[in-house]
């Protein structure tokens, strides 16, 4: 976690700002007792999603002397700024409840068997989009569940958006692994073209996945048209950020289990109206950073 924070450099200020706003927003929700449980559930689910996605589980559970305490304390530290204000409100019991939920998460050291599922996935998704092939294959249970849940509930107000928002978190996790240099160089694109093409591909897949559901949802809920219209750009900006963030620190063969803190904050930001510009601004900033970093590997 410290390594990830150090790696952010000056951009840490953005995350402090976004995190600060989020903490304040949650505090306001805790004051409204009926919303407090939603926030607690949201934080617990975010940590659960993180637990399923993190790539350092095998290392931690094998080499750290007390892995459960280690993982638990990480989630407590991560949620602390957002949840601690709960104890100063009428919903004070929410915080112990959150801690209780966080106690369970480290026990979920799920390791799926390395069976090869969807062997012909490259017939549907071009082999060049290895992030999507690999991501869907590795997360097919969560991915399918969330998407089906969104499909089944697509006529209900807001609820499918929540499932799609969770799906976006899964999709951003596709960007945690750096491809080998040979794969990066395939096609010999300039850094700008390389990243732009990545963003175009992600835009295409997300529109194909999200747009039909949002159209149906709008037909049933006319008053949600603005939210539904803003939803795809908001989610795209999170995925754009994940792509640019990955390539801003790309090193051949480097597995980046990190990215979790900024991505978690940016993902949360995409769900809150006043924070919507933050992922977009950060995507733009990191786009330039990524271009600069890729020059080392793609420019002659």
């Amino acid at each position, binding site marked *: 976690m410290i390594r990830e924070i150090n790696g952010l450099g000056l951009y840490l200020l953005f995350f402090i700002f976004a995190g600060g706003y989020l903490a304040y927003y949650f505090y306001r929700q805790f004051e409204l007792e009926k919303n407090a449980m939603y926030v607690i559930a949201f934080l617990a689910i975010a940590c659960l999603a993180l637990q399923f996605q993190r790539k350092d589980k095998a290392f931690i559970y094998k080499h750290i002397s007390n892995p459960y305490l280690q993982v638990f304390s990480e989630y407590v530290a991560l949620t602390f700024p957002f949840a601690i204000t709960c104890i100063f409100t009428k919903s004070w019991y929410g915080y112990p409840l959150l801690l209780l939920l966080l106690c369970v998460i480290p026990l979920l050291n799920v390791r799926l068997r390395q069976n090869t599922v969807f062997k012909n996935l*490259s017939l549907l998704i071009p082999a060049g989009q*290895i*992030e999507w092939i690999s*991501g869907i294959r590795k997360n097919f249970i969560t991915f399918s569940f969330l998407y089906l849940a969104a499909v089944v509930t697509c006529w209900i107000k807001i609820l499918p958006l929540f499932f799609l928002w969770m799906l976006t978190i899964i999709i951003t996790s596709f960007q945690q692994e750096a491809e080998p240099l040979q794969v990066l160089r395939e096609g010999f694109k300039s850094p700008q073209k390389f990243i732009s093409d990545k963003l175009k591909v992600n835009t295409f897949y997300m529109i194909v996945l999200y747009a039909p559901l949002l159209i149906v949802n709008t037909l049933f809920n006319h008053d949600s048209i603005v939210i539904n219209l803003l939803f795809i750009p908001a989610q795209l900006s999170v995925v754009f950020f994940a792509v640019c963030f990955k390539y801003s620190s790309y090193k051949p063969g480097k597995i980046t289990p990190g990215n979790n803190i900024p991505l978690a904050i940016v993902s949360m930001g995409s769900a809150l109206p006043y924070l919507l510009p933050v992922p977009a601004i950060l995507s733009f900033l990191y786009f330039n950073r990524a271009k600069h970093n890729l020059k080392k590997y793609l420019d002659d």
Partner: protein
Amino acid sequence: MIDVNGLSVKYGDKVVLNDVSIKLAAGIIHGIVGLNGAGKTTFFNALAKTLKPDAGLIYLNNAPISIRDSAYLETVNYFFSGITGNEYLKIFRQTNPDFNQHVIQEYFKLPLDELIENYSTGMKKKLAILSVLKQDKPLFILDEPFNGLDLETNKILEIILTTLKQKDKIILLSSHILEPLLTICDKIHLLENGQFIKTYERSDFAGIDEALFGKLKQDAIKNIASAI
């Protein structure tokens, strides 16, 4: 022909390649040998342009070398997780018109429909070799290509390298075991303390072992005999 002029690479204060100059002709298999830390991989990385040298120029056929010129098989083969061997190979466009995956696959016998993370080290090496062979490049850099391969595949690799040589490619090999290089290489270049100190022609190969390990063997025979 590769022409390396005054190539220097430093990592911090440590000079890894020190004003290296060498010419490497096409249609020849060049072996690069040296003890650990001599700078073999750094030299390869500079040729493949995966690192920027601090000084020096590298030319391929009188033009500055480009990232498009080399097919590079690295020592450690890293693959993206969650993809199959077939998917990995599909990523690379086939620029070598003669490449017939099925023929090579008959010898490599890779489970291409399986996830790469389930492959053994040798299988991963074979997959990386397949992806390298798919590309038509003037320069083939193979860092420790024999690592993890079984005896039969070692022989197949020797045949592959000889075929590339006949196609007038420039082939650079390294190995931490000297024997395969003695069999396959036409020239062996000895890298020591960041400089090429000697090039051995095939007729001089017998002297390499002595040059590399002469002193070590003298000391070790005496010391180890008294230690075990």
